[in-house]
């Protein structure tokens, strides 16, 4: 059995509104969108216009730097709109679903293909984009061979889906094919991390060609970046890949059936939802289908992704490319009289300054209030408590703010993604936008290294 890696640092935010383990059938959705913000650092070149007819798997746009890297339509239909934001920056391609045409990329056994053939198939089918690389936490560059590939088989984020439940209900038996495909792309190992004490899921348990690791501990133990740090950390000059376990399935499906089909199981969760349950959905689908008649009254925020790292979308927005949960939370746009001085019987906090810390309570309601104002860094020694990595968070942040590229490199910018710092941001009494700083540091590195 694999060695148990026990993490003590971190924090489980015990948020109310967990999804009940009931899987609902896929709701019919007629509108899809592909958001450019899901791919940081990407410079996209459109290959469609408004009105172009597409099939599932048709190219919508490609990367400027690597034109062979395609991003495709999740469904067949017509491009309804190409949404642009400020300064005409591309924000989203919106597609109305019509018919069910899909492009056949050809079924094949990946083990009988060469590395180039596997790579080409993934690039042209649009499934390459599901692979992300460290450093930088961006879509993997096709010109590099990764030292290893890391897959997290559990998610510890607040209200995240139980991936054991998800994998037990996933259609078909494509996981092994996906792993086989990945095994052609690296000379190193494929690491799969599972939670200590996770359920027996045959499809996972019997996986070949992978190294299993077991992790125990609070969030962010399920973050793949944290797992990499403890299994085999990224060092300067090398690249590792990470991939969502449900996308390994999608990859296997591509090789087994020949079609681009990223159907996945997600959780609909949060205190703003009437019936939090599991749903089948395709990335890009409007969330209107699953939210319909399922939201409470009042000011709510719909988030594609978890509450720490997700993106705010409208109640008709499209589900993000990499996400596995839709969270609905009440907005916190109210003023609280002497809110900073209350005993806090029902206020969840990392800090033991609230009475709630000393009361046994399982779940808490949190909203989107900032609970304070922006300040300079004052407290020390606490950010480290929620970041289970050998990294000095505040020093790294200050190096980024100072734009000191060499120091950022020395302090471990290659190992991190903004999601790893989400808890630092959550507990910060100075309300610093830490994830944004990390991303700006990563972007600076990308610019400097090219």
């Amino acid at each position, binding site marked *: 059995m694999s060695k148990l890696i026990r993490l003590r640092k971190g924090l489980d935010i015990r948020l109310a509104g967990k999804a009940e383990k009931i899987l609902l059938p896929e709701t019919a959705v007629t509108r899809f969108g592909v958001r450019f913000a899901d791919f940081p650092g990407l410079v996209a070149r459109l290959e469609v216009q408004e009105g172009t007819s597409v099939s599932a798997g048709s190219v919508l746009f490609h990367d400027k730097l690597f034109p062979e890297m395609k991003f495709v339509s999740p469904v067949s239909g017509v491009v309804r709109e190409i949404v642009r934001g400020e300064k005409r920056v591309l924000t989203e391609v919106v597609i109305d679903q019509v018919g069910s045409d899909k492009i056949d990329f050809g079924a094949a056994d990946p083990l009988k293909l060469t590395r180039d053939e596997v790579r080409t198939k993934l690039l042209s089918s649009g499934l390459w984009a599901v692979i992300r690389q460290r450093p930088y936490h961006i879509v993997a560059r096709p010109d590099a061979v990764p030292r290893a590939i890391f897959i997290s088989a559990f998610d510890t984020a607040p209200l995240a889906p139980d991936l054991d439940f998800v994998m037990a209900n996933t259609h078909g038996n494509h996981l092994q094919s996906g792993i086989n495909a990945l095994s052609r792309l690296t000379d190193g190992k494929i690491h799969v991390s599972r939670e200590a004490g996770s359920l027996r899921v045959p499809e996972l348990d019997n996986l070949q060609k992978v190294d299993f690791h077991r992790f125990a501990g609070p969030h962010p133990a399920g973050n793949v970046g944290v797992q990499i740090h403890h299994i085999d950390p990224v060092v300067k000059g090398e690249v590792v890949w990470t991939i969502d376990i449900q996308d390994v399935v999608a990859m296997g499906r591509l090789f087994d059936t020949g079609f681009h089909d990223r159907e996945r199981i997600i959780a609909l969760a949060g205190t703003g939802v009437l019936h939090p349950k599991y749903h089948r959905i395709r990335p890009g689908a409007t969330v209107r289908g699953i939210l319909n008649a399922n939201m409470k009254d009042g000011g709510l925020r719909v988030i594609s992704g978890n509450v720490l790292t997700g993106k705010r979308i409208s109640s008709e927005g499209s589900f993000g490319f990499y996400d596995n949960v839709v969270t609905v939370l009440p907005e916190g746009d109210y003023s609280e009289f002497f809110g900073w001085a209350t005993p806090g019987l029902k206020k969840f*906090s990392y800090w033991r300054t609230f009475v709630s810390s000393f009361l046994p309570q399982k779940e808490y309601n949190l909203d989107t209030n*900032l609970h304070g104002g922006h*300040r300079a860094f*004052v407290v*020390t*020694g606490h950010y480290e408590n929620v970041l289970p990595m050998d990294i000095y968070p505040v020093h790294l942040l200050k190096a980024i703010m100072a734009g000191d590229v060499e120091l950022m490199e020395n302090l471990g910018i290659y190992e991190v993604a903004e999601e790893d710092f989400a808890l630092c941001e959550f507990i910060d009494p100075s*309300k610093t936008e830490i994830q944004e700083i990390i991303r700006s540091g990563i972007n600076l590195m990308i610019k400097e290294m090219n």
Partner: protein
Amino acid sequence: MNFLLKKMKKTEPLFQKGGRFEKLHSFYDGFATFLFVPDKVTTRGSHIRDHMDMKRTMSVVIIALLPALMFGAYNVGLQHTRAFGIVDWTLLQMFWFGFLKILPLIIVSYVVGLGIEFIAAQIRGHEINEGYLVTGMLIPLIMPVDVPLWMVAVSVAFAVIIGKEIFGGTGMNILNPALTARAFLFFSYPAWMTGDKVWIEGLTKGGGLDGFSGATPLALAKLDGFAQMPSPMEMFIGTIPGSVGETSVVAIMIGALILLVTGVGSWRIMLSMTLGALGMGLLLNLTGGSEYTQIPAYYHLIMGGFAFGTVFMATDPVSAAQTNTGKYIYGALTGILVVIIRVFNPAYPEGTMLAILLMNVFAPLIDHFVVNANINRRLKRVRTA
């Protein structure tokens, strides 16, 4: 409270850019956010945030200071009765007497300090930082009760402007602002910060019993050898002359408990500083030598400002070492230095203030080495890979 909120929302535009009272914006904002946690929601990054903010962080420290403040008020009264031979005061009378003596110190400290903070925030266009709420309470507690108010005002202004604002405000300062204020007075007006008169209300104006000495234990030890010192129990409980809030180890330990349970104060610094002082004291006990080196090691923990400095001053997150490993080193060295200054330096009976200020200066250096070790670990991975 809706009435108040509505009223505030109505007056808000007056203080915004272009409003009639634009120049008072920071003042308005400070007041408004004091009354109400604003309705601001998250726009970037994590959608949910901890309920903790800087106001609450600072409030915790102030609450932790209250036992020392209360005991200080009582002790001011108690010492006054002793010096003047008053025998019929009740505990409450002593407390009230002391409270009225301390109150002006607190008021002057807050008015001057917060005034400067408001102006600085307005100039920078920042929100008011709550850091001074703690500093403003610390300063009266480390002053002799008889210090003239204008001196408090001058030292506060010095500490806030030179010690903090020129570095960029709370979070950027190198030295602990409260200790900067005290050090400023200590070197500028030594007569008011040392000796055997200032620690007890009324003595500087003459009077008092014949032959009564209001000297602090440390000063007594310097003058007449440590045999003259009060009993350890008295020093532990705190019924001795000294700065307002520093005398009672018991009251300070209650505060320490609050800081440790809430996690606001660093246990690493408190522990290592205590062990550092204790270890150095024991080492000196072993060496023999002068009478001072023979002071029982545990005396160092209950004498003078050590306890107060350990719990409330050395742990200031901004001026202390910031890395966890660095905190152990910083604390231990501070503790060692306290004892060295006390024992080997006859000019300064009180070493805690100087030791902490000195280590404040070295804290970034300690962090530098700790962070460099981290960098080296990372570089080593590259070579072996």
